């Protein structure tokens, strides 16, 4: 890009370029980004990538070892493990991404309003988040699964539910700090409406923090989905999911350890990639909360 091209970019676009360049200078974050994208692509194109139907049993070759035909071997019902791991990415990415978006959709407006208007609303919201945080995540998920019934959708709702109080607190805290900024006062003096101030001035300025929070929550939700499915409270067999695969593999752990290793490795790599990306994004976007 030439000097002139840069000159015509708006300040916001220039800022975005700077952030992108700073992120790309971190090899671990880039590796995380690439692997995370691979998982997303695999999840979207699972039917194209998987060589076999994940539910098709080949009874002539149960528990077969890795071969050219079956890259990761077959499971106890002769199903292709590689195809099942590929399809399992769908449930994981769906639970991870959708639960985060769902939680954001609830938490961000509540946090914004509570932090901006304060008044009686603020302590009410604070108590509400305290109560939600009082239920340990898995206990909450178990309770919800008991009331709603076990399924991927309900597991996603439970995961979103667990993220909401955390995100409300973050959004509220950011709003409290941002509403004291000079540009917000200037907007108030100019007669901007509250909606304009929240949407145009406060929300864009906490976007970095929210993106970091989302990236950090996705791996937690991926593990959460695997956990719930493992316990029989999430994805129901025969639908392939990494948690379901691990649960089914338990009795065969001494005969075919790869049944345990491949799905677990998939969960581990998916969470590790999002965690690496999250750490990198935090360094670039939200330097205050470095750990």
């Amino acid at each position: 890009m030439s000097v002139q091209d840069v000159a015509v970019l708006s300040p916001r676009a220039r800022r975005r370029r700077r952030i992108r360049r700073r992120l790309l200078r971190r090899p671990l974050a880039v590796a995380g980004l690439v692997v995370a994208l691979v998982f997303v692509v695999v999840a979207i194109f699972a039917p194209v990538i998987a060589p076999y139907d994940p539910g098709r049993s080949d009874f002539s070759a149960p528990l077969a070892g890795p071969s050219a035909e079956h890259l990761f071997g077959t499971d106890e019902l002769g199903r292709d493990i590689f195809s099942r791991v590929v399809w399992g990415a769908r449930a994981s990415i769906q639970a991870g991404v959708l639960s985060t978006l769902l939680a954001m959709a609830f938490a961000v407006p509540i946090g914004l309003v509570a932090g901006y208007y304060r008044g009686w609303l603020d302590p009410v919201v604070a108590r509400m988040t305290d109560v939600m945080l009082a239920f340990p995540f898995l206990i909450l998920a178990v309770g919800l699964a008991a009331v709603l019934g076990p399924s991927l959708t309900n597991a996603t709702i439970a995961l979103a539910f667990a993220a909401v109080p955390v995100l409300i607190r973050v959004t509220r805290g950011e709003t409290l700090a941002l509403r004291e900024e000079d540009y917000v006062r200037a907007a108030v003096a100019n007669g901007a409406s509250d909606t304009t101030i929240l949407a145009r001035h406060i929300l864009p300025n906490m976007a970095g923090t929210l993106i970091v929070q989302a990236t950090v929550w996705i791996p937690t939700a991926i593990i959460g989905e695997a956990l719930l499915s493992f316990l029989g409270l999430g994805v129901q067999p025969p639908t392939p999911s990494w948690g379901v695969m691990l649960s089914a593999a338990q009795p065969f752990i001494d005969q075919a350890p790869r049944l345990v290793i491949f799905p677990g490795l998939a969960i581990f790599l998916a969470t590790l990639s999002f965690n690496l990306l999250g750490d990198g994004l935090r360094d670039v976007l939200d330097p205050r909360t470095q750990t």
Partner: protein
Amino acid sequence: MRAFLLRKTGAALIVVFLASIVVFAGTRALPGDPALVLAGEDRTPQALEEIRAKYRLNDPVPVQYASWLTHALTGDFGESRRAGIAVGTTILDRIPITLELAFLSIIVALILGIPAGVIAAVKRGSAADYASGTLALVGLSIPHFWLGLLLILVFAVKLRLLPASGYVPFFEDPVENLRRMAMPALVLGTGVSAIVMRQMRSAMLDSLGADYVRTARAKGLAERQVIIGHAMRNSLLTVVTVVGLQLGGLISGAVITEQIFVIPGFGRLTIEAVNQRDYALIQGVVFVAAAGYVIINLLVDALYSVLNPRIRVSGQPG
């Protein structure tokens, strides 16, 4: 100090009270007659009538709630579906097992996390720093239950060193008890140790740059003494809070760890309750978990205010 603790206790009581409403509303959201839910196996018409009278199920909802709460506070959550065993007793029987697991896990987390964090901070930028940072990241990303399965694969299936699962009470056979608790505690402890390590490292970096550390060095104290006696002592404060905040995660972690290693604790009870659709038990388990978690947090706050006199004045932790 007393005002601070009173305020915290008040807030905790309000949260427990609100949580009880959530649990109560949750069970009422279930389809079907709550009397059937609470009656367990014994579903004769007379038994159902008794339940209705005892829990005031024919009265308005607020009266029902008040009755439920007074019963719950005395530990009476109704009858479990498993013939005639009270939910309260079942829960009480299981809690000590989970407490032992949690205690051992925290010890594992501290033994792994504190030295790693201190070394990483003191030798900042060295190979040791990067190694422990990488391990912490792995510890945070690895799913506990998969780590548990891998440990079973290595130590029980391949090496045959430890039993894969099962539980022996501590007072029956302490050695066997610890042998069986070793893998679960390691699984549950590693995740927490990663967090302890990260916190310890950043707290140590802060205190190593502080004035009192420079003073200690200036007056000629040995480096060892500066690190252990001055920098580390102050950094341990943050670790107390961090460990406290992880206790909720430990309750969740215990659910899955106990499931994998077949330990009959509170966590396994939770899953049993859901699998058997034992609603009275689910309700009791969820409420006890929430109340227990709030109380633990209150104790952590209290401990923190004892350890750190500054917050007694400002009233704000941290």
